[in-house]
C-alpha cells in the first residue's frame, strides 16, 4: 500500500507513441481479424501493414516538423528520447517496413502462402526497431533489441519447405542469444560503475556532475561487452560470421528487412549509447571503433570476392557497408565532426539500395526462393534488359559510382572522417571500396557479358516492380540532387541532456 502511494508513474504523452502504437495496433488487428475472417482479399494483409506503417511515417513527419526549431526531449521518465536523430531513424525504418511488406506480399503470393502471421511479425520487429532508435535507457533498449530479434528469428525460419531457412533461423537465434547475453552483462556492469541505466544519466555520471563509484575496469569491460552485443547486430567484423548464412537462408524479403531496418536500429542504438552515454569515454571507445571499421570494410569486401551466391555476396557487401557507417561513427567521436549526420545519411541511402537489390534477387529467385546463384543471373540483360539495368544502377550505387546515391553516402562519410583528421581510416575505407567494387562488377559481367543459361520466363510481381522503380528512382534522384537528402540529415541531433 505504501509503495502504491509513493511510487508515482511517469506522465504518459501518448502522442509521442503514435508510431509505435499504430504498428502495434496493426499487428494485433492482423492476428485477431486475420484468424477470425478466413478469406481476405489478395494482398489484403499487406495493405493493412502498409497502412499502419504509413500512419507511423506521417506521425514521424509531423514530429520532424515540430522538432525543426528545438532539439527534442526525453519522455517517460527519460526512458524514451524523441529527437531529430530518432525521428529520422524511425522514418527510415518505416520505409523499410513498407518496402519489405510489398516484397513480402510478392513472395507470399508466389509461394501461395498468403497469411497474416509474417506481416504481424514484420510489424512487431519494426516496433522493436523503433524502440531501439529512441531508447534512452539501456533496459528499454534491451527490450527493443529483443522484440526485434525474436521477430527476426521467426521470420528467418518462416519458410518451412526450405532447409536453409530453418538453419538460418536457428543459427541466428543461438548466436543472437549469445550477443544479447553479452549486451545484458555489459548493461549490468555499466550500471554497476555509474549507478544508472539511463543513457543520458550515464553521460551525466561520467561527466562528474553526479558522484560515481570509481570502478574504471568494470566500466571498460561493460563498454566492451555492450559493443560486442551491438557489433553483432550491425554485423561488424569480427562479429559478422552469422551474416552470410542467415542472409542466404532467410526468405528474401526478410533478408532485405533484416539488412536494412535491423541495421538502422542497431546503428542508431550504438550511436546513442556511444555518443550520449559514453561521450566522456570517447578516448576509450574511439580506437575500438576505428579498428572495427577497418576490419569490417576489409572483411566485407575481401570475402565477397570468392562468393558464388548473390545473396551471400550482398551479405558481405552489407558487412562492408557497416564498416563505412562505422567510419562515420568514428568521425562522430571527434570534436566538431558531423559523423552522426553522415552516418545517418548513409543508413538512409543504404536502406533504399539494399531493398531495391533484394527486390531484384527476389524477382530472380524462382518458386523455391533458392535460385540465387550468380549463374542464375547470367545473360539477364538479354532476357530482361530493364531488370538488368535496374540492378546495374543499384550495384554501381553500392560500389559508390558518382551520380548515384551510394556515392553521396560514401562521399559524406569520407568527408566526416577527413574533417576529423582520420585520414588513415578514410583511405583504408576507399581502398576497401575498390576491392568491394570487384564484387559488383562480377555480377554486372554475369548479367551483361555472358550468355543466358536458361530461357525460362521471369515473371515479376507488380509489388516487386514498385519497389524496384522506387529504389532506382531514389538512387538516381539523390545521386543527382544530394541536397534533397542532405538538407534533412544535416540537422540530425540528439536530445539535449
Amino acid at each position, binding site marked *: 500500500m505504501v509503495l502504491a502511494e509513493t511510487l508515482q508513474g511517469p506522465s504518459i504523452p501518448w502522442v509521442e507513441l503514435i508510431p509505435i502504437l499504430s504498428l502495434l495496433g496493426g499487428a494485433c488487428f492482423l492476428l485477431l481479424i486475420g484468424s477470425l475472417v478466413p478469406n481476405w482479399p489478395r494482398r489484403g494483409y499487406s495493405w493493412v501493414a502498409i497502412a499502419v506503417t504509413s500512419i507511423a511515417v506521417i506521425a514521424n513527419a509531423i514530429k520532424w516538423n515540430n522538432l525543426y526549431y528545438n532539439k527534442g526531449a526525453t519522455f517517460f521518465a527519460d526512458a524514451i528520447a524523441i529527437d531529430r536523430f530518432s525521428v529520422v531513424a524511425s522514418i527510415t525504418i518505416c520505409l523499410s517496413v513498407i518496402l519489405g511488406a510489398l516484397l513480402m506480399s510478392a513472395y507470399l503470393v508466389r509461394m501461395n502462402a498468403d497469411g497474416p502471421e509474417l506481416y504481424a511479425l514484420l510489424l512487431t520487429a519494426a516496433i522493436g526497431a523503433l524502440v531501439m532508435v529512441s531508447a534512452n535507457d539501456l533496459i528499454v533498449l534491451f527490450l527493443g533489441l529483443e522484440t526485434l530479434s525474436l521477430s527476426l528469428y521467426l521470420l528467418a525460419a518462416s519458410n518451412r519447405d526450405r532447409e536453409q531457412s530453418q538453419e538460418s533461423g536457428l543459427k541466428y537465434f543461438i548466436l543472437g542469444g549469445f550477443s544479447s547475453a553479452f549486451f545484458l552483462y555489459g548493461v549490468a556492469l555499466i550500471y554497476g560503475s555509474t549507478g544508472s541505466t539511463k543513457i543520458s544519466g550515464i553521460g551525466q555520471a561520467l561527466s562528474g556532475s553526479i558522484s560515481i563509484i570509481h570502478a574504471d575496469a568494470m566500466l571498460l569491460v561493460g563498454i566492451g561487452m555492450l559493443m560486442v552485443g551491438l557489433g553483432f547486430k550491425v554485423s561488424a567484423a569480427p562479429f559478422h560470421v552469422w551474416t552470410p548464412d542467415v542472409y542466404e537462408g532467410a526468405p528474401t524479403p526478410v533478408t532485405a528487412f533484416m539488412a536494412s531496418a535491423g541495421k538502422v536500429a542497431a546503428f542508431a542504438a550504438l550511436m546513442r549509447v556511444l555518443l550520449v552515454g559514453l561521450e566522456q569515454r570517447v578516448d576509450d571507445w574511439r580506437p575500438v571503433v576505428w579498428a572495427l571499421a577497418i576490419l569490417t570494410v576489409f572483411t566485407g569486401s575481401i570475402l565477397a570476392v570468392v562468393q558464388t551466391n548473390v545473396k551471400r555476396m550482398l551479405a558481405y557487401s552489407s558487412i562492408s557497408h557497416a564498416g563505412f557507417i562505422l567510419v562515420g561513427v568514428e568521425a562522430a567521436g571527434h570534436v566538431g565532426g558531423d559523423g552522426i549526420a553522415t552516418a545517418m545519411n548513409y543508413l538512409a541511402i543504404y536502406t533504399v539500395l539494399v531493398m531495391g537489390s533484394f527486390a531484384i534477387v527476389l524477382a530472380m529467385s524462382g518458386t523455391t526462393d533458392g535460385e540465387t546463384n550468380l549463374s542464375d543471373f547470367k545473360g539477364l540483360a538479354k532476357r530482361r534488359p530493364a531488370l538488368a539495368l535496374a540492378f546495374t544502377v543499384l550495384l*554501381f550505387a553500392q560500389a559508390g*559510382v*558518382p*551520380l548515384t546515391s551510394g*556515392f553521396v553516402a560514401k*562521399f559524406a562519410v*569520407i*568527408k566526416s572522417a*577527413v*574533417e576529423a583528421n582520420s*585520414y588513415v581510416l*578514410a*583511405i583504408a575505407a*576507399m*581502398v576497401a*571500396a*575498390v576491392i568491394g*567494387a*570487384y564484387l559488383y*562488377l562480377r555480377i554486372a*559481367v554475369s548479367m*551483361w*557479358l555472358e550468355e543466358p543459361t536458361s530461357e525460362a520466363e521471369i515473371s515479376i510481381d507488380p509489388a516487386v516492380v514498385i519497389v524496384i522503380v522506387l529504389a532506382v528512382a531514389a538512387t538516381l534522384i539523390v545521386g543527382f540532387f*544530394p*541536397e534533397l537528402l*542532405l*538538407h534533412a540529415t*544535416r540537422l540530425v541531433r540528439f536530445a539535449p541532456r
Partner: protein
Amino acid sequence: MHASFPILSALILLPILGAVLITVVSNKYLELVKLIAMLFSIGVGGMSVWLLASFHSHDAGFQFVSQHEWVTSWGISWHLGVDGISLFLVVLTGILFPLVILGVDPHHDHKRYLAWLLLLEAGVMGSFLSLDLFLFFIFFEIVLVPMYFLIGGWGYDKRVYAATKFFLYTMLGSAFMLVGIIATAVIARHDVGYLTFDLVTLAEHASFATNTSRWLFVSFAIAFAVKVPIFPLHTWLPDAHTQAPTGGSVILAGVLLKMGTYGFLRFGLYLFPAAAVWAKPVLLTLAVIGIIYGAIAATMQVDLKRLVAYSSVAHLGFIVLGIFAITSQSLTGSVMQMVNHGISTGALFLLVGMIYERRHTRQIAELRGIQAVAPIFAATFMIVMLSSIGVPGLNGFAGEFLVLIGSFQSARWWTIVAATGVILAALYLLWAYQRVFHGEPDEANSSFAELTLREGVLMLVFIGLIGFTGLYPKPMLERIEPSVDKLVAHVVSHSDYKAPTTPQITKVGE
C-alpha cells in the same frame, strides 16, 4: 562570358541526351539509332569547332564560364570553363567521337554500343571542362562505366579480364584522389572562409602548409599517374588497349589517357604549385623511364596492337616530361603533344583495326608484304606512323620538339636521355612497318583488301589534321601559350621555383 548560349554545358548534356534517346528507341529501328548517334556526335563536334573559332586567342583566363549552384551545403557548383590548355582537348574529343561512330563498325548490339559511346563522350567532355573538384571527380570516375562496358562487351578474347583490370586499377587511383579532394576543400576552409570545391577559388586563395600540400599532391598524382599511365602503374594499359574494340582503343588512347596528363596540369601544377616543384625530380625520372621502357617494350611485341599500346606509354612519357619541366615551351609542347598523340595514335589504332578486320590476326609474324597488294593502305599507314615517330613537317614533330627544347632548359639530363626515345620510336615503328608491309605477300596476305572509300575518307580527315598541325602550328600555339604562360607564372609566384631565363627561343611557326 561571351555568349549567352551555355555552350559548355551543351557539350556535356547533348551526348547524354543522345544516349537517352538511343536507349528509348526500339532495337527494330537500327538505322534510326545510328542516325541519332551520328547527328548528336556531329552536333557536338560542330559545337566544339565553333568553340575553337570563337575562342579569344590572347585571353589566358577561362572563357565561356558557366556556373550554377549544385550542392550548396558542400560548396559544390556546376562550374565549367575552357582555356588554352583544355580547348584543344575538347576539340579533339569533339572530332574523334563522330569519326569513331561513323568509321568503326562494332558488329553487334549497335544500340548499346552507341549509347555507351555517347555517355563516354559526355564524361570526357565534363572532365576537360570542370572547374570544380567535385564535378571533375564525378566525370573522371563516371567515364569508367561506359569504357568498362565497351571493352567488356565488344572487345576480344580476354575482354572481361582487361575491362575489370582497367576499372579496378583506375578506381584505386581515384580512391586516393577522392580523399585528397575532400581534404583539400576541408583544409582550405580556413583560408577561404567557407567550404568550397571550386578550383579557381582554391588555387587563388588557399595556402597549404608545405607538408600538407605534398600529401595532397601525392593523392592527386596517384590517380593521374594511373590514368596517364606513368611507369610503373601502366600495366593495365596494354591489356585494356589490346582487348578493347577498335573504337574503344581510339578513344582510350585519343582522349582518355589525356585526362591524366590534363589532370596534372590543371589540378597538380595549378592547385599545388610548390608541391609539384618538389615532386618534379621523381616525376621527371618516371617519365624518362616510361619513354625508354615503353619504347623497348614496344620493340619486343609480337602483337601489332600491343606495340601501339606500348608506344603510347613512351609518348605519354614525353608529355609528362614536358609538364614537370615547367617551362613555357615544354608545357606548350606537352599540350600540343596531347592532341597530336590523340590524332596519330588514334589513327594507328584505326589502321590496326582495319588490318584485323581483313586478316583476323594482329600477330606481326603472320602479316607480310601488304605494301605490294594494298599500296594506298600502306602509304596511309606510313604517313600516320611517321607522324607518330615525330618526323618534321608532320604534327608529332612540333610538340615533341617543343617539349625537348623546353625541358632542356630546366631538366637537362632527363631531356638528354629522353631524346634517345625519339630514335627508339623510329626503330620500333619502322621495324614493325618493315615486317608487316615489306617483302613478298604469302598466300594469306595476298588477298589483303585495299582501303575502302569509307575508310579512305576517314583516314583523310586524320591525315589532314596531321599535315595541317605539322606545317602550320601557329594557330594552335597562339591559343595554348597565353594560358600556359599564366600557369607557369602562377607556379613561379606560389613556390620558390625559378623559371629558366635562357634567351627566348624563336617559336616554331613564326
